[in-house]
C-alpha cells in the first residue's frame, strides 16, 4: 500500500466541469465527456503542487485538499 499523504475531496454538486484542474493536474483529474469529473482522491505526494494549483484555480472552488498531520 502506498503512503497516502494527501487527500482530495471535490464537491461534485458544485463542480461545473470548467476543467481547470484537468489542465493543471492531468494525472489526478480527468473529465469523462463534458462534465463528469473523475479524480484520484489520494494521489502521490509529488502531485502536491499541481493539486494545490488546481484547487486554487477552480472557478467554483469545489476542491478541498488536506495533508494529514501537516498544514496543507
Amino acid at each position, binding site marked *: *500500500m*502506498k503512503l*497516502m499523504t494527501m*487527500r*482530495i*475531496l471535490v*464537491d*461534485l*454538486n458544485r*463542480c*461545473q*466541469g470548467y476543467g481547470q484542474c484537468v489542465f493543471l493536474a492531468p494525472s489526478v483529474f*480527468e473529465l*469523462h*465527456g*463534458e*462534465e*463528469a*469529473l*473523475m*479524480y*484520484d*482522491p*489520494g*494521489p502521490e505526494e509529488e502531485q502536491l503542487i499541481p493539486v494545490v494549483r488546481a484547487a486554487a484555480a477552480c472557478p467554483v472552488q469545489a476542491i*478541498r*485538499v*488536506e495533508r*494529514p*498531520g501537516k*498544514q496543507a
Partner: protein
Amino acid sequence: MSPANGAFGANGHVVIVGASLAGLRAAEALREEGFRGRLTLVGDEPYEPYDRPPLSKQVLTGRAAPESTALPQASGLDAEWRLGTPAVGLDLAGKRVRLADGDELGFDRVLIATGTRARPWPNPAEAALDGVITLRGRDDTVRLRRDLAAGPRRVLVIGAGFTGSEIASACRGLGLPVTVTERAATPLAGALGGTIGAVAARLQLEYGVDLRSGVSVTSLEGDDAGHVRRAHLDDGTTLEIDVAVVALGAQRNTEWLRNSGLGAGPRGVACDAGCRVFDMYGIVTDDVFAAGDVARSPHPLFGFEFLALEHWSNAIEQAEVAAHNMLHAESERRPYIHIPTFWSFQFGVSIKSVGVPPLGEQVVIVQGSPDERRFVALYGRRGRTVAAVTFDQGKWLEFYVDQIERAAPFPPQYRNVAQPEARQVLQAEFPDPALPTEAPMIVRTGHSPTERAWTLMPAGGGRR
C-alpha cells in the same frame, strides 16, 4: 461564531454513532463551532471515514485505489475513534450507547448517523453464491474489482438505479459484457421518472449495455462449486453470467435502535427540521439528533412531508445543522431547509438534480435536447416547479434552485434563456410507488413521525 454553551461546551461528551460522511462532518462542525468537550465517533467498519461516490466509478475502474477514498479531515479534530465496533443499542433514560464489544459510552448528546446499507438479494442461499455481490462499502468494491478482473463472460446488474447504472457504466468502460435488468419501464425511473429515464435507457444501449426493462430476475443459479452461473428472468429468459451485482437500493441502519423508545424504523429515524429525534410517541427529544441517510425529517419547502435523502450533500449539510443545534439554545437553532441535490456520472454524462423529482407529475424540457444528451428538464406539481434535472448542463442548476425555492409557476415562462421551439409538457411517468423499483434516493415517508407514504416491500418468490 458563538461560544458553545456553558459546561456542556467545555466538558460535555458527544457520541457520534456512524463514522462516515455525516458523522465526520458533524465532528468537524462541532469543533468549528467551539465545542471543546469530549468527542467519540463509533463506526461499524474498521476504516476511518471514506467517500463512497468514487467506489462505483473511479475505484471500480481501477483509476483510484479503494484506500485512497479516505476523507480529508480537519486538523485538531481531537476525537476518540471506536472503529470496527458497531453500536447495538441506545439507552435513552440512562443516556448510554451500547457497543458490540460490550462497552458502554455515556453521552450528554448523541448523533445518530448510521446511514444505510445495500438491500440484499432476497433469497439468502442465492445471495451467498460466489459472484453475487452488493456494492456499498470499500470491502464490497475490492470484492467486485476482483470478480471483474477475473474476466467474467457476462456481468448482470440487477436494478438500474444510480448505483446499478454507474456499475454498468464502469463495466462497459472495462470492456465487459453487461446485462442490466430493471423492473420498471426504464432505468432511473424511481428517481427521475420514465420520461427522462427513457433518455438514460438510450444512453445505456448506445454504450452496449444489454438493457432489459420491465423484467424481474426470479432466481440465480450456481454451479457445483457455489459460484453464480445463471440468472432466470420472469420473461422466461436465462442468462449465462459469472457476476451478479444486486443494486436494489438501500435499507436504513436502524435495527440497533429497536426498543430504544425512539421513533426509528425501516423508514429511518424521524427527526424535526432541527435534526432533533422524535421518540416513539412523536415527542421531540432534547439530546438525541440524527443526520444523513438514516434521518427522515419534515421539509418546509415540500409540504412538510418527511423526506429521507440519500445524498452526499444531505449528509454534509444536515450534519452541520445537527452539530449547530446540539450546541445552541432554542432561540439560536437553525432549521434544515436544504434543497435536495445530487449527481451521477455514467456513460460519459453528468446527470445532476435539484429539488424532489418524484414529487413531479409533469416534466418539460426547458433547455437543450434529449437527443443530444444535453438538456435541462423541469418537474412540476400542481402548477409549481419542484425539481430540475440536467444532463451535461450542471451550470444551470443554481438558477433552478432559486425557482424551486420560490415555488415558481410551472410550466415556466422564461424570457432570459433560449428555449426549444416545440416545448411540450409531458407526464413525468414515475412508477407506481407501491411497486419496488430501484433506489429512488429521495424517499417520501409521510407527514408525521409515525405515518408513511408507502411501503417498499420485495414481491414474493424472490422477484423484484
